[in-house]
């Protein structure tokens, strides 16, 4: 089926390309052409939607701001231009048959965008001015124009207050996590994602753990991958984020973590001119940040009794310090990697149709020699208007990705670990056939680079939306879609490899099907008894079904290096799994709008889900919101008008309260047994085993949120302010209760008992401090805070829980009254008088390594997730054709466990600077006991390595040049933009590790540890964007 579609799809695209653009010109028509520019700077604006009101005619501007609409009926028309971030403009145009008429327009930056229509679950979306909650929009089309964006996470990073992107590592192919308004639950907090109304899979691509899971002793990391990264940002028009239950009530039992709506690019009906766009990007990626220096002190022991072990110390002065930086000197360790991306797209439309087709080829190398992430994708979006009352959208995409991950993090075979723990001067380790190099502790680059952990994924998303408007006031929308993701993950270690001497091969083939069936209707009518009161009733149902299947096999003992088929291995294992989860939701929403300035909305959503317990039926989520555009209210005109002393253009007060849920995991409500093995009389037979006790009362978590805020624009719309306060409580939180052993079942029990709170402020300030013809400066400043608190486990006597999967030296705990996953550490006991650490044993030169005594109680250090975030974006436009864009990203208030440095300073490795610094190393011999003890604290106590992780990064810097038209006359191109952009260019932090943004356990909720995680890479890209 999928192969068939794979073959047919390009053919359909070609047919569309050939047939669709040729709309025959009709008599008594003319053409409207023009350019849309920024009203302040005169810079051309691309991707502006220009439509002829009352007709189906429309067009989108190219990168030079130009548009063209043919076959417009003669007569006078109203032409409207709209784009996210700008106020729409309408002008009157008179079309004369057979002639061109020019309609140049300018758009003003609109800080508040109250007229913008956003997706909220209802059939036709809602204008922002009607909503009581905030919805953040990201203009991805614009972002991809002015900088290089590789995936959705980058598109959201620092652009949306309240949305926190927490990456795991800088290795291409791995992904970070997305938290919206904090971690709402112990059981998870992922948002749900829809793409053009279809539920989108964002789970792992099913790769093998990048430290080599499947090979014994190699599972010391959990970097994540995400199916969300398969979509090309070049295909995205915009992203809208509904941040919590107050906004996402209509999405029901899975939306408490927020909803991300991805809207892909479409053609514009009536756009007779086909617009081709080609974007070619070439770039380089490098390590940029520090690589670890390792140290050896050639002390008397190494030069005498251990001379054979430390040949490099012989002949050196006593206590000489040898240093090495193997990652810098070894050419097989790191590379300046290349990046290539070619994106070709075409969009257009006729009287009754429009289309957008695109293709992408993306080759992204990592800085490790065996790391890459390649992607190919194709998209075809069609809109067909059968009649004035019926139209049909078809969206389809196919993506294939292929990435190979290197050893990472705390794997003994990871290069960063091997370099950081290296001991210069030591006798080489390794085998006789492949001797090591003493600068590398565990593995050489040429060995590590052979590691073969590769995942090939396919994704197909097919969807159709049928819009039917039987009457102007009655609209219906049916959406059906399938999102299919399939991967083949392979792990191969040939015989003789360092990780599996006998050879090892493993494969996993996860498949996920997500089906969406959605109906939404709305009725909009004036209220019969009261002028100025508009009633809008929305209602609908949403069905989502998900199936996950996995087939896995391993083979040990491959026999020959060239044979990697699992079936040929000496020992093989196989396994499979299957999960299914279905949900049904219904909703009804009633909105009353008064005089187009006061909106009161109430809604109810009912949900049932296959993972709810049998003793639990349906859950109802209510919602209530108000939006009041005070600046349109006559009684406030004195204070809130452009002529008032505040200079207010628009001012809207809004507040919303709502609930949404989070469904429990599939099957967790059901009491189940499984089948194991038993030895009966010397033979192995199947036997019943207890599996899960189940909780028939299990229900979804209940998120409840209130938000209050305002949007305002001042100073002639040069300054916009969007302020929101939210307070979100997740009650009935799924908490694991210990299961009494007398129940007879293993494990624990999920129960709806806990409570978590999140509150914070979100502020978006947009402004245009300078707006002149040849120079303009636009500013976008995001400020967000989050206070996260576990209110209660809800389990009597339960006072703490450790996040699962922490590395040794667990320093994080969930405790009531503190943030989830906060750092709670045992600090050294100190003498109250001297402040010196207390220890056991007798300290002397002969016995210098006494044990530091620890406090029995743990001390709270701080949260593990940022509590404040600032995104500061500046766009400078000069001489109309040049644009400089810079984004500063700050995250702070949180901490990270620097396990790497703790590990290096420990006695097992002994090669960090701290313990080789002569002032520390010989402190005891020099009589400085206090300093010696402080060094022992650093060597022995995990807790002192929990460090502040505040940082500021120059996340993006780009310079774009719109090539003047006269230089393009012979190229055939209608427009060209050349952009040089950099990503992760500078870092300011007090963190003593390499990069405070990393997390060696990116795939686990809450656990944040820098255990030799690879830092974010620096990227420079040169992009040429051509329009034809």
């Amino acid at each position, binding site marked *: 089926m999928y192969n068939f579609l794979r073959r047919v799809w390009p053919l359909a695209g070609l047919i569309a390309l050939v047939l669709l653009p040729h709309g025959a010109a009709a008599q008594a028509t003319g053409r409207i052409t023009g350019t849309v520019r920024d009203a302040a700077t005169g810079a051309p604006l691309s991707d502006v939607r220009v439509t002829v009101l009352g007709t189906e005619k429309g067009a989108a501007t190219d990168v030079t701001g130009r548009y063209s609409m043919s076959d417009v009926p003669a007569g006078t028309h109203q032409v409207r231009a709209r784009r996210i971030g700008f106020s729409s403009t309408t002008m009157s145009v008179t079309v004369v048959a057979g002639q061109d008429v020019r309609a140049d327009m300018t758009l003003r930056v609109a800080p508040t965008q109250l007229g913008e229509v956003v997706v909220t679950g209802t059939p036709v979306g809602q204008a922002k001015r009607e909503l009581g909650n905030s919805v953040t929009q990201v203009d991805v089309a614009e972002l991809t124009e002015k900088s290089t964006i590789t995936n959705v996470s980058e598109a959201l990073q620092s652009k949306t207050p309240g949305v926190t992107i927490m990456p795991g590592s800088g290795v291409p192919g791995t992904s970070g996590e997305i938290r919206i308004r904090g971690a709402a639950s112990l059981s998870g907090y992922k948002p749900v994602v829809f793409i053009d109304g279809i539920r989108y899979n964002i789970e792992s691509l099913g790769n093998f753990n990048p430290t080599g899971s499947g090979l014994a002793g190699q599972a010391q990391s959990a970097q994540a991958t995400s199916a969300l990264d398969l979509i090309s940002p070049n295909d995205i028009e915009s992203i809208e984020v509904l941040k919590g239950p107050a906004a996402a009530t209509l999405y029901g039992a899975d939306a408490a973590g927020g909803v991300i709506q991805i809207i892909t690019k479409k053609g514009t009906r009536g756009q007779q001119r086909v617009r081709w766009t080609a974007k070619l990007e070439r770039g380089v990626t490098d390590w940029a940040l520090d690589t670890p220096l390792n140290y050896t002190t050639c002390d008397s022991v190494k030069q005498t009794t251990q001379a054979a072990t430390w040949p490099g110390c012989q002949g050196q002065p006593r206590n000489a310090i040898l240093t090495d930086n193997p990652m810098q000197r070894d050419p097989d360790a790191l590379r300046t990697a290349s990046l290539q991306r070619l994106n070709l797209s075409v969009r257009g439309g006729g009287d009754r149709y429009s289309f957008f087709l695109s293709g992408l080829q993306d080759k992204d190398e990592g800085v490790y020699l065996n790391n890459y992430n390649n992607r190919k994708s194709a998209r075809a979006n069609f809109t067909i208007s059968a009649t004035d009352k019926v139209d049909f959208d078809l969206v389809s995409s196919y993506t294939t990705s292929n990435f190979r991950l290197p050893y990472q993090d705390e794997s003994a075979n990871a290069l960063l670990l091997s370099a950081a723990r290296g001991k210069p001067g030591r006798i080489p380790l390794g085998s006789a056939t492949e001797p090591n190099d003493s600068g590398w502790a565990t593995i050489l680059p040429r060995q590590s680079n052979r590691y073969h952990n590769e995942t090939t994924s396919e994704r197909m998303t097919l969807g159709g939306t049928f819009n039917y408007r039987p009457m102007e*006031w*009655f609209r219906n929308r049916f959406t059906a879609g399938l999102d299919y993701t399939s991967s083949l993950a392979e792990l191969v270690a040939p015989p003789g490899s360092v990780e599996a001497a006998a050879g090892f091969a493993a494969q996993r083939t996860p498949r996920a099907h997500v089906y969406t069936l959605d*109906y939404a*209707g709305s*009725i909009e*009518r004036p*209220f*019969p*008894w009261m002028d100025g009161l508009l009633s809008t*009733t929305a*209602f*609908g*149902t949403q*069905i989502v*079904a998900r199936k996950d299947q996995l087939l896995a096999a391993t083979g040990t003992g491959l026999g020959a290096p060239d044979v990697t088929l699992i079936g040929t291995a000496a020992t093989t294992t196989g396994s499979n*799994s*299957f*999960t*299914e*989860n*279905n*949900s*049904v939701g*219904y909703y*009804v929403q009633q909105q009353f709008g008064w005089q187009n300035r006061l909106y009161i909305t109430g809604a109810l959503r009912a949900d*049932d889900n*296959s993972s709810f317990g049998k003793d639990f039926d349906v859950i109802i989520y209510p919602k209530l919101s108000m939006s009041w555009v005070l600046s349109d209210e006559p009684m406030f005109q004195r204070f809130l008008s452009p002529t008032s002393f505040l200079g207010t253009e628009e001012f809207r007060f809004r507040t919303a309260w709502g609930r949404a849920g989070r469904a429990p995991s599939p*099957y967790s409500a*059901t*009491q*189940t*047994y499984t*089948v*194991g*093995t*038993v*030895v*009966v*009389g*010397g033979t*192995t*037979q*199947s*036997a*019943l*085993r*207890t*599996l899960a006790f189940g909780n028939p009362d299990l229900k979804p978590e209940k998120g409840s949120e209130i938000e209050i805020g305002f949007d305002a624009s001042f100073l002639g719309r040069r300054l916009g302010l969007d302020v929101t306060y939210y307070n979100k409580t997740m009650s009935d939180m799924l908490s694991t*209760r*210990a*299961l*009494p*052993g*007398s*129940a*007879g*079942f*293993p494990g624990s029990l999920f129960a709806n008992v806990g409570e978590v709170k999140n509150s914070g402020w979100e502020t978006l300030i947009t402004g245009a401090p300078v707006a002149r013809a040849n120079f303009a400066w636009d500013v976008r400043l995001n400020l967000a805070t989050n206070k996260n608190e576990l209110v209660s486990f809800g389990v*009597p006597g*339960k006072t703490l829980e450790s996040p699962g999967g922490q590395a040794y030296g667990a320093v994080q705990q969930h405790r009531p009254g503190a943030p989830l996953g906060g750092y709670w550490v045992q600090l050294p006991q100190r003498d109250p008088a001297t402040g010196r650490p207390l220890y056991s044993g007798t300290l002397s030169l002969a016995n210098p390594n006494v044990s530091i005594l620890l406090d029995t109680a743990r001390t709270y250090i701080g949260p593990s997730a940022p509590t404040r975030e600032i995104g500061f974006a500046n766009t400078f436009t000069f001489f109309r054709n040049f644009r400089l864009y810079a984004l500063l990203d700050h995250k702070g208030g949180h901490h990270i466990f620097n396990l790497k440095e703790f590990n290096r300073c420990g006695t097992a490795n002994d090669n960090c600077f701290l313990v080789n610094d002569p002032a520390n190393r010989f402190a005891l011999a020099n009589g400085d006991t206090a300093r010696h003890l402080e060094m022992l604290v650093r060597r022995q106590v995990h807790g002192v390595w929990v460090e502040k992780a505040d940082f500021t990064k120059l996340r993006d810097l780009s310079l774009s040049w719109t090539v003047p038209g006269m230089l393009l006359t012979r190229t055939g191109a209608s427009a060209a933009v050349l952009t040089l952009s950099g990503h992760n260019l500078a870092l300011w932090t007090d963190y003593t590790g390499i990069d405070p943004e990393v997390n060696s356990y990116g795939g686990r909720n809450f656990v944040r540890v820098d255990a030799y995680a690879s830092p974010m890479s620096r990227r420079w890209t040169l992009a040429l964007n051509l329009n034809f």
Partner: protein
Amino acid sequence: MPGAFFKARRLAVVALLVVPAGACNEFLEVENPGAIETPSLDDASYLQLMVNGVIGEFQIMYTQVSHYNALYSDELHNHHVFFEERLIDRRDVAPENGTYSFFVYGPLQRSRFMADTVTSRLRTLLADSANRDVRLARSLVYSGFNYILLGENLCMIPLTQEPGNPPLTSDETIQRAAQRFEEAIAVATAARAYQAAITPATAASNAAVAGSDTLINAARVGAARAYLWLNDKTKAASFAAPVPAGFVFWAYYLNGAVNNYYHGRLSTGSSGSNSGSINNTPFLAMAGDPRVPRPATDEPMQNGIRGFIPNSPTAASTYNGTAIGADFTQSSLFRIASGLEAAYIVAESNGPTVATLDFVNARRAVGNQLPVALTGDALMAELRDQRRRDLYLDSHRLGDLRRYKRHYGVDEYQRGTYPGTTSGETYTSQEAWPLPLNETTENPNVTEAPTCTGS
């Protein structure tokens, strides 16, 4: 205008009613091919799977619990790198001790629950034929041994979290064990008669007869063990006496399937090895007795110390009768009950008789010990010494320590300073496993955490 307004509302209602019609309850009934839901067990086709489940849970539990019972009692010592194991060795087990909960209490309760559940289901599914079905007898025998182990080793035993069911005492629990063994004997005897009456005999009926004999003897040993605990020595001896001397009821293990847990903890070269030695136990002094075999020299253990790590005792199928012995293997069968144990029960029940002296000297000969001519308490002390050698590591010792103290006032618990301590640690006064945290906090029937400081 109002008409249009209400017409619109009616349309909305119709749409809401029509569209969800496709979403029926069946849609929310999802597949779960990796699991069997509890109601499905009412199907008779699961009968053998269920009986195997009873055996399987016991197998998994048995050597695991035996190992930790050995550590908790005086059979093994380990100054382990992981502090919870040291606490177990010192009998300082708090409810928070996760090692105890995971490796001992949880498996014991799961095995007990599985046997009880399956026994109940067998009665229902087999209906009138249940009382002559060898499968019911088998389930009852394992159920009895589960109750024996719970009763002997714990001081308080909750059986359910359903309110109104207070935990049982050790005696109450062992009375349940006795009931199950007696019932098992009755069912197995009826099954044997039924199968033996089948003419012509078939391979299946012959196997059922042999199986019934094994179960009858296993139940006799179990019942005798229960009554010995309950200090009803007449009944104990009456159940033990008919058991053939060579009878052994095994827990089966196999490479790669259900492994003998001792292999992972005590055999040389296995991961997690060197997790218990006979150093600092009374058994260190038994050099030369093949029933407590150990290598010729001590071996490195965790925490940088050395120790004599025991090899296969008489309870293991890999016992070879030599002083050094043989390593445990993954597939070492392990003894649950035996004719040897029955003989010890008879001897203890009869007291210091000539027959007891003869029995003691016969066992001393096996241990390369010279004969003794003891009487009275000295003879009974020697009987206890021989018993701990013959039943080494097979989950009898902790029950014996409690029983000796209860019935004879003999305290053989390790007391005083904990060997190897650098901070003055001692063995505690705890004498039986307490309840873990999950039971004390989550079971409404448990109103206080037992201290288990008395036997």
